């Protein structure tokens, strides 16, 4: 689209938006940039390294990375089949099921945490059975953190993968099937490679969301150092007792998220244009 317009212009690359739009956009950029600049300005850089390497920070960091990776793995294992069913398998009430599976995307995470209690808590629908069968208590446990993160993060992957599957040209799969490939083989060797960019993008987004999860985690899993106190919880609680540490941990989270978004841009654009376009 842009390229066409540039072609019509006398000098290429001088397709500048009107000054008013530029000015408003500049305000919007400042609106997003200023809080982060302010945060960087407030960070006690001299003590940054020592604050970051305190045992409590490192414990929270380690726990966050572990739980968010678990949540990402679970999101892939369960989310890809879910996305496939939602994209390809027409069944009555699919729209309702789809809305249900994406509900936690728009729900306040605290509500998600309360809902998790209602299902997996001690007095929840499955709580007693989980304990009787597996001796497992999810609230106040690391597994509970993973559960809460997966609950909140998986929709990101499902949405991304579902969109890619819908945009996929099914003729390649049909060709594989007519050539004798089983459904499973066609899925594994044709569909999956085709949606790989979207799958990676979805997984990265789910991971970033799991890493930042706060509301459902503190509601459902509580807050205990080394067991359920992830980075966002640690930042929130350190704000009162140790603002410097909270700021340093915030910067680490921002750096990770920023890196994810920078890498995601290429992934996502490249992915959607190749898998979504006609090949």
């Amino acid at each position, binding site marked *: 689209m842009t390229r066409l317009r540039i072609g019509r212009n006398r000098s290429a690359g001088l397709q500048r938006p009107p000054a008013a739009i530029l000015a408003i956009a500049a305000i919007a950029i400042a609106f997003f940039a200023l809080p982060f600049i302010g945060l960087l300005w407030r960070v006690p850089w001299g003590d940054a390294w020592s604050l970051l390497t305190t045992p409590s920070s490192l414990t929270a960091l380690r726990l966050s990375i572990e739980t968010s990776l678990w949540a990402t793995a679970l999101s892939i294992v369960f989310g890809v089949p879910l996305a496939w069913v939602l994209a390809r398998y027409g069944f009555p009430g699919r729209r309702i099921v789809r809305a249900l599976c994406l509900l936690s995307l728009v729900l306040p995470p605290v509500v998600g945490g309360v809902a998790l209690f209602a299902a997996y808590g001690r007095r929840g629908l499955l709580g007693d059975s989980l304990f009787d069968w597996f001796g497992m208590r999810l609230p106040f446990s690391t597994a509970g953190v993973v559960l809460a993160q997966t609950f909140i993060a998986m929709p990101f992957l499902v949405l991304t993968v579902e969109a890619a599957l819908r945009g996929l040209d099914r003729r390649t799969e049909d060709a594989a099937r007519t050539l004798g490939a089983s459904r499973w083989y066609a899925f594994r060797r044709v569909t999956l490679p085709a949606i790989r960019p979207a799958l990676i993008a979805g997984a990265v987004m789910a991971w970033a969301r799991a890493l930042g999860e706060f509301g459902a985690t503190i509601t459902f899993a509580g807050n205990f150092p080394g067991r359920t106190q992830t980075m966002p919880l640690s930042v*929130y609680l350190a704000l009162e007792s140790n603002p410097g540490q909270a700021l340093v941990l915030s910067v680490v989270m921002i750096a990770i998220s920023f890196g994810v978004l920078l890498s995601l841009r290429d992934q996502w654009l490249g992915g959607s244009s190749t898998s979504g376009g006609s090949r």
Partner: protein
Amino acid sequence: MAFQVPKLHPNALVAISFLMLLVFAPACGSSSTTSSTAGSTDSLSGSLTVSAASSLQGAFTDIKAAFRKLHPDVNVTINFAASSTLAQQIIAGAPVDVFAAADEATMNKVTDAKLLSGTPTLFAANSLEIIVRKGNPSKIASLSDLSKSGLIYVTCAPEVPIGKYSAQVLQKAGVTITPASFEPDVKGIVAKVSAGEADAGIVYSTDIRATKRAADGVAIPANLNVIAKYPIAAIFKSGNNTAAEAWIAFVTGTAGQSILKSYGFTSP
């Protein structure tokens, strides 16, 4: 000739302005006096922001209703959170008029930051109680029962007043427990025990009363108990100092004190 016309205009303008002043100024004056007399039934107006400790939620909500009857033009907003959170918000510049904390140490942080317009006044006291699940299924009778194996005990971080107090109580009783969670504020403890996900915690007596029997309380003997004293103070930067002082006077006055008593608070 040509000069006379413009000369006339300024004179005419001055004359007209003068006439207008003569005609309208008394009217303006009278209208402003009438409006001020109309408002003098209650001189207080504007908005009032109160930051109050979570444990004051019930009592201050009632006090707000009673205060509004007296001063209908004051728009009261109350922000309930852990005292430590509120103190940190005030120190960070939150536009707050009155701060009511659950302990003196937290108030001191704000005092030290030179953000108070006066000295804090103690207005209530609260003792601690063990909160247990409804009907006390874990059969907790004393502090030492809290260390039973398999019992899920939740508390707050030591930075939060209730976390500090409960640690003091347990220390006095010689009980050591590993909590399942350090909740961000006292509401977190109450919520988790009321929901039946945790078995016990130590909270203010008033918190247990506020659950309306969703959880039960087990008394802590006076020699082991910690009495929390609640200070209240107006914030120096308040945009509405008169309303702030009126609020504090109301809370420390008979009407406010009787509401606080009905919620289980005692006088300091």
